[in-house]
């Protein structure tokens, strides 16, 4: 009754249809435009950096030698984060999907999601005040006993604010991403494969190794790649935790810097060419994370075709 009435009032309703589909299409176009604009404005604002005289760039040796150390620092921090977070994240996912009692699994999933909900600045503050001071003693021990390995070269930082601490904080932030994505994949493992393995007398671990992990391999890799994307772009944890410096091999001395933290620390006071320089650094970061994410998505889509999941 009410439908017919209002339909008559709105004429045939054809205008509404047009407006609505137009608006929906417009929103889609807007997203494309925004992403295009992100790339465009970054490029436009970054251009002066590439044409500037090498002596005018911070460090005085041109853009490449300015950006190279902080790209390396970004990669080091992200690598530390992944080395720590990947095994733990996969194990957490396995625990929730295959080990925990069925009625607890849901709640445990929420707990892991809570880790993801805590804002990055709080992780940064926690890392700078609590974690860094806790790690001073282990770092000193590492410098004394494993100092011959370049990455543990002494003297250890007196504050604990090193790239290793930053990497550990990043690992905590990446962990829930890896855990929740791989958990989804583990839950999709065909039940029949698992039951078949168990029926043949496999122990739980053998079942996981033979039925679950091979099925989930693509998913795990893409989850790690997405975590890598997050670790590369994470700013506050590094800005607060790391006391930065020139590029060095040792992970337990203050030094190194990441792109995101470099921008956050210097942008508020920057002007002129320095501003363009930082935006150019942002562009480099954008391209790196874009590449990583695209590879991850490609792996996911390839995996989908094979597995019949979704």
């Amino acid at each position: 009754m009410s439908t017919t009435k209002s339909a008559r009032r709105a004429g045939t309703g054809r205008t509404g249809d047009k407006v609505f589909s137009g608006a929906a299409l417009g929103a889609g176009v807007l997203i494309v435009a925004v992403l295009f604009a992100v790339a465009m404005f970054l490029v436009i604002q970054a251009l002066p950096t590439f044409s500037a005289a090498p002596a005018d760039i911070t460090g005085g040796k041109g853009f490449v030698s300015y950006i190279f150390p902080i790209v390396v620092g970004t990669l080091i921090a992200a690598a530390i984060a992944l080395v720590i977070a990947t095994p733990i994240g996969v194990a957490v996912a396995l625990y929730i999907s295959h080990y925990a009692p069925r009625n607890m699994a849901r709640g445990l999933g929420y707990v892991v999601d809570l880790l993801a909900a805590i804002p990055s600045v709080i992780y940064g503050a926690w890392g700078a005040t609590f974690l860094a001071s806790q790690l001073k003693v282990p770092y000193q021990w590492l410098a004394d006993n494993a100092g011959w390995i370049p990455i543990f070269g002494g003297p250890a930082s007196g504050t604990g604010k090193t790239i290793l601490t930053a990497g550990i904080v990043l690992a905590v932030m990446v962990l829930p991403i890896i855990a929740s994505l791989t958990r989804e994949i583990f839950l999709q493992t065909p039940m029949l494969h698992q039951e078949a393995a168990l029926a043949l007398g496999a122990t739980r671990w053998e079942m996981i190794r033979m039925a679950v992990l091979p099925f989930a391999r693509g998913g795990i890799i893409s989850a790690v790649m997405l975590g890598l994307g997050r670790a590369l772009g994470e700013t506050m944890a590094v800005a607060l935790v790391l006391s930065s410096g020139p590029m060095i091999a040792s992970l337990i001395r203050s030094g190194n810097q990441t792109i995101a933290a470099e921008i956050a620390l210097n942008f508020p006071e920057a002007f002129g060419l320095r501003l363009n320089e930082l935006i150019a650094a942002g562009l480099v970061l954008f391209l790196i994370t874009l590449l990583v994410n695209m590879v991850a998505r490609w792996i996911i889509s390839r995996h989908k075709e094979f597995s019949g999941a979704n």
Partner: protein
Amino acid sequence: MATLMTERKRSALTRGRLPKSTPWVVAASSIVVAAALMSLIGFNVFGWAVLSAVLFAAGNVVSSAVVEGRRKATDKLATSLVLGAFLVALLPLVSVIWTVLVNGVPGLLAPGFLGTSMKGVTGAIDNASVANHTPVLGGVYHAFLGSVLITLWATLISVPVGLLTSIYLVEYSDGNKFSKVITFLVDVMTGIPSIVAGLFAAAFFGLVMGPGTKTGFVAAVALSVLMIPVVVRSSEEMLKIVPNELREAAYALGVRKWRTILKVVIPTAISGIASGVTLAIARVIGETAPLLVTAGFATQINSNVFAGWMASLPTFIYTQIMTPTSPSNPDPSNQRAWAAALLLILLVMLLNLGARLVARIFAPKTGR
């Protein structure tokens, strides 16, 4: 003891298996041994717990290897490693929440913390409050207001754009090329580092409004770049699971497509959409990096998002820690920072809880 029990049973089915009491025996003995070892090198509870757990796992695996064989032992080892990893993952969560609670509660309870701004609070005032042991002055009202306003504007921008895009993807596109492009770009957008989103907004408004433009609205635009993909993805998922029969029933009654979407599809999916939006808000309200480069640092109340610098909770925490108001006495600044951190965590947790609540309240009343 283990051998005694197996001898008593001697059933073919239980031969070569450890009795059920083994884990308890191993647990008790590993706790005792760990306590003994820790008392040799200096006792602390955390080390005791870790050592007990390691000894327990090792004891289980070794006893299983001796009695039950290699396969069972590997299984036990894997179980202990997986459980151990889960417990290790919980450590930072507990530690972060504990640190924030311990450091944040005194500041949050300080009089006037929620009601005042940092206007006029200088290093001298902080020094005086430390010297005279008077309560720390200054508060978080301006930052709280800024966070709420910036997030509100970001939501106002992102929800219509995100929702309409997901409607286009699900209802109008029929899986054409353009929709594939949008889906791909939304995925790419999800991966944009937050600092790059901030740089984009800063660069955009820098070109349009003159360099150095920093207002709450610029920050809201930066946050929208981060929020839109989240809204699109969650709403898309929700619209997809609306049963097609509902749409067909509406079309069969002669209802126009746009009215079908507005009156049938969206109301059915509203619970999921609303909780997705709430989760997106919870994600962006804690973002710091984009605000750092777009909103500036204000110490006073500014309720106009279109003019002037604006404070927010995350940048407030950041600046109070990195550049204390009084460099010689950072304690008052730290107290304010941790109190603001506690407030922010409470806000995010409330939003997360709210999302679950919203999903339950708006859930369509179906027969399921």
